[in-house]
C-alpha cells in the first residue's frame, strides 16, 4: 500500500509491502501520519505554539521539556561534538533542530511500523529514506540518488534492506546549509548522500559534510568504519563514493 502525505514542509511517501489486510496497513499509515504531524506541531520553528518556539522564547524551563525534546537537544549536542561543530542546531542563531528532527521522526515512524507488524516498508521524507525488509517485488528496495544537475536522472542506484539513506544538497533549496566556521553558505559540495543504519544520524552527517565543503569527503571516509557509507558530488562534477556503498548491480 502506498501513501503520500504533505507534512513538515515536504511530502512523505510511505510504501508498505507487507502481505497484510488492507485495513491493517491503512491503520499503520494513519498512525505514522499522525506521528509526523505531531512532530511538526511540536518541533516546527514555523509554528509559534510549538515546543521549540516556546523554548526559544524561554516560556518553558528545562524541567518542563518533554522527553522527546530532551532527546532531540541531547542528540544535537552530541552531533555538534561528533562533527567538529559542523552540525550546528544554532547555526542560524536561535535553536533550529530541524536538521535532526526530520530524520529522527522518520526513524521513529519506521520503528512504529515495525512494532505494528510491518517488516517490509520504505518511508521517504522528502528525499530522506528509511527502508526495511524487501519491496513488493520480494527483492531489496531499490533507491536512486538524484542526479545533482538533472532532476529526472539518477547518479547512483542502491539496493537496500535495512538501511537509511539521507541526502543533503544545495540544488533544491539553495544556500540553506551554512559553514559555521566562515558564517557563509556551504561551498564545494553539490550533493552528499550518507547510507547507514540510522536515518537521524545519516541525515545529520550528510548535512555536516555539506557544510564542511571538500574537507567533508575525507571526513565521510572515516564514517565507513561505523557503518555509514557515502556518495558525494562536488560543485565541479566529480563524484566520490565509499567502497561499501550498497550499489545495485
Amino acid at each position, binding site marked *: 500500500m*502506498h501513501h*503520500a502525505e504533505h507534512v513538515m*514542509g*515536504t*511530502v512523505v*511517501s510511505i*510504501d508498505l509491502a507487507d502481505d497484510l489486510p488492507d485495513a491493517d496497513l491503512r491503520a499503520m499509515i494513519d498512525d505514522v501520519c499522525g506521528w509526523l504531524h505531531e512532530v511538526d506541531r511540536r518541533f516546527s520553528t514555523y509554528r509559534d505554539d510549538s515546543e521549540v518556539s516556546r523554548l526559544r522564547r524561554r516560556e518553558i524551563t528545562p524541567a518542563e521539556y518533554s522527553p522527546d525534546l530532551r532527546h532531540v537537544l541531547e542528540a544535537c549536542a552530541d552531533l555538534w561534538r561528533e562533527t567538529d561543530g559542523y552540525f550546528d542546531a544554532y547555526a542560524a542563531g536561535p535553536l533550529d533542530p530541524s536538521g535532526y528532527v*526530520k530524520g529522527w521522526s522518520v526513524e521513529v515512524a519506521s520503528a512504529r511500523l515495525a512494532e505494528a507488524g510491518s517488516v517490509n516498508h*520504505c518511508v*521517504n*521524507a*522528502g*528525499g*530522506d*529514506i528509511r527502508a526495511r525488509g524487501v519491496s513488493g517485488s520480494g527483492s531489496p528496495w*531499490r*533507491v*536512486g*540518488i*538524484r*542526479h*545533482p*544537475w*538533472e*532532476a*529526472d*536522472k*539518477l*547518479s*547512483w542506484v542502491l539496493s537496500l534492506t535495512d538501511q537509511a*539513506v*539521507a*541526502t*543533503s*544538497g544545495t*540544488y*533544491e*533549496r539553495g544556500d540553506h546549509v551554512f559553514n559555521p566556521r566562515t558564517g557563509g553558505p556551504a561551498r564545494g559540495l*553539490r*550533493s552528499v*548522500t550518507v547510507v547507514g543504519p540510522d536515518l537521524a544520524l545519516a541525515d545529520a552527517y550528510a548535512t555536516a559534510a555539506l557544510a564542511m565543503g*571538500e*574537507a567533508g*569527503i*575525507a*571526513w*565521510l*571516509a572515516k564514517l*565507513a568504519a561505523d557503518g555509514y557509507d*557515502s556518495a558525494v*558530488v562536488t*560543485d*565541479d*562534477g*566529480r*563524484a*566520490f563514493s*565509499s*567502497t561499501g556503498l550498497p550499489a*545495485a548491480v
Partner: protein
Amino acid sequence: MRRSTAAAIGTLTGAALIVGVRLSVSAPVVPAAAPPAVDLTNTGQDVETPDSPTKSGTPSKKAPKKPAGDDKEEAAGEAGGGGLTNGVFKGSAAKNPYGTIQVSIKVSGGKITAADATYPVTGDSATINPPAIASLKQATVKAQSAEVDAVSGATFTSESYVKSLQAAIDAATA
C-alpha cells in the same frame, strides 16, 4: 583538494622555470639549493569552475603523488645535452595557507623528466589532500535512468515535490 593541488602545480611550474633559468645562465648550480618556492598565496588561488556535471578528472592526475624522497639518485652532476645538470633537485619547503609543500624535479638527459611535490600531512590540509581521500573512490558523476522504489535527494518542498521523480513514482504506485 583542488585548491592545494592547484597550488602544487603552480609551484612545480614556477620552480621548474626558475631552476631552468638559473641553470642556463650560471650552470652548473648545486642541485640541493633550488631557489625559494614561488609565493603560493598568489599562485594557489582557486580558479572558479562553473557548474559542469560532465567535467571529470582532477588536476591531481597531473601531479604524481609519490613521495619526493623516492628519488635518492642525488645529483650525479653530469651535464646533459640540454644544459641542465642531471639529478634530482629539491626546492626549499614553502609554507602556504594550506600547509608546507616541497617540490622536486628530476633532470636526465638535460631535460626535466619528472616533477613531484610533497603534500601537507597534518592539520586541516591533510584532510583535503589526496592520501586522505583514498577511501572514497573517485569517478565521473553518472546520469542514469532506472526503475527504483524511491529517490533520495536534497529535501524538496511541498511545492517542488510535484516536479520530482519521487512524485512520479508515487503517482505510478498510488
